[in-house]
């Protein structure tokens, strides 16, 4: 029984129909035949070209690897309403990190590229910059705090 999936790498999304080992991708001619190999990898055949890839499922995503290059994918049933990337006006740390310095307060007017907060992880400093000219609505972190990718550090208007 065929099922439709929306598959995204965070930059682009594809509409994919899966029917057993046969897969079609909207806008692409021909079917992809996806078969497991005895060595735990996968073969994908399309237009007489066979490629080999690895795949693994994480909690919230799927990882694939081909020729040393890995990609993380989000897949949702095409009927689902969930969206993959929520674009909001919040600044978050890209990873678990410590706040090294805070350069703005609520009400600060900033230009595009201005540093808002600097965080440090794995001995590296990373400035988090304003995506565009705007006004800071609220600051939710302080120097020395350990923050997660889910933590909103700064809200913009």
């Amino acid at each position, binding site marked *: 029984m065929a099922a439709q999936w929306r598959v995204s790498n965070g930059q682009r999304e594809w509409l994919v129909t899966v029917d057993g080992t046969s897969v079609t991708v909207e806008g692409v001619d021909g079917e992809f035949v996806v078969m497991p190999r005895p060595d735990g990898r996968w073969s994908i055949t399309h237009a007489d070209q066979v490629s080999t890839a690895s795949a693994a499922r*994480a909690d919230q995503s799927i990882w694939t690897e081909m020729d040393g290059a890995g990609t993380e*994918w989000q897949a949702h049933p095409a009927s689902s309403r969930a969206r993959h990337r929520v674009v909001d006006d919040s600044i978050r740390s890209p990873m678990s990190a410590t706040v090294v310095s805070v350069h703005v307060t609520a009400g600060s007017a900033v230009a595009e590229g201005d540093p808002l907060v600097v965080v440090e992880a794995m001995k590296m400093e990373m400035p988090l910059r304003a995506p565009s000219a705007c006004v800071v609505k609220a600051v939710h972190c302080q120097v020395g705090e350990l923050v997660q990718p889910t933590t909103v550090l700064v809200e913009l208007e």
Partner: protein
Amino acid sequence: MMRRVLIANRGEIALRIIRACREMGIRTVAVYSEADADAPHVMAAHDAVPIGPPAAAASYLNVPAILDAASRTEADAIHPGYGFLSEHAGFARRCEDRGLMFIGPPSPVIERMGSKTAARAAVAQAGVPVVPGNTPKSQEAADVLDSLARVGYPALLKASAGGGGKGMRIVRTEAEAAEAIDAARREADRAFADGTLYVERLIERPRHIEVQVLADGHGSTVHLFERDCTLQRRHQKVIEESPGPTVTPALRERITQAAVAACRAVGYVNAGTIEFLVSGEDFYFLEMNTRLQVEHPVTEAVTGIDLVRAQLLVASGERLPFRQEDLTMRGAAVECRVYAEDPSANFLPQTGLLLRYREPQGPGVRVDAGVREGQEITVHYDPMVAKVITSGETRDIAWARAALALRGFEILGLRHNIPFLLALLGHPDVRAGRIHTRFIEEHLADFTAPAGDDAALAQVALAAVMADAAMSGSASPGRAGETATGIDPWSTFGPVAW
């Protein structure tokens, strides 16, 4: 010979040292932070002792805990690996005071070479060329500015206690100076608890070439030729090789002799590396690393010498088992450092679970790693996942082998730099050796292009199949008969909640 070595480190270098000890019949003690209780280096050692919470400052830099672990396990020697306490003179001295063999040079040598200014002075006196530089009269900003002006722009601000690019800033104009001094000092302070800065002339477009040395306590000092470590990103080495592709026999002779002279001048004992900036046939002393280097395997590949074994022999008071004339450089070797990082996002370190991790293997391929499938790469330590060292009769063969090995390296569950390394290996300027230390920075866009559409589409199809199977709870859509042998990819991980 020592009987029991405590390895004050983690990851691939701890495993490397444990192997060398086991081959020599020496017992090993691992230490580990709370984050590393299940780590491969803990599994590999004869004994293992917990030394504190995940933060390095509380564990792998925790001198009292490590010394306590050594005495509790009756270790008679400590190998510091690289990083962490490996160039910490105070730690080496405390080992010496307790009668523990510190597997590295004597603490006064670490101390002297650990100060960039003292090291420069020492080797300059031995006739080794140094980069023109200036030590500020005081660490006041005005005095640092004055030093910059004396050396002339473009100049380089460096942390006196530094290493690994921490606390280093290029200053092209006086206008940039104030901010650069602040940033460098802050970084140096945090990395080394010492914000002291000094100033050097910036050598434009240099190569980074270093000489491996070994010295015993009986007056024998030998070099093991050079490594070219010019390919760096954010002042961290990415690809290293030996021999240096642009090093002429004449330059090799001069630079290796300079390295040996520098070692003799400071009474160096054990393994060490003298780093030089090279411009044409000119070279300048940069710094000495008084420890084993990350990239030591390329030297092992071309010389056939086991550097860790040599360290253990020398620390035990034995003579080096070879003389300079016994040492040869044969063939070529290259090391690619696989980092959990995103090259397209300014090399941002990445964390994640190694969902699938399969190392490449084969003749001429060596992988030094300290991780295993199922392990989590955390925020606490260096993001290096593995080193892939390949060697062969010629540089071309070693490089072809490197590309094949990297393409066959399966790492799923986090972003890493293998595509970036492959792009570097294939770049015509890199292949031809037409590079300098800022080459990656200047050509970054060449190395971070996304994969082609065909590869992407095949993986889109595969991802959809994986999602579909998880949803339907089905077994493998293909060869259903094979699930009992544990090789069915579907069985690798449990069902996913969508």
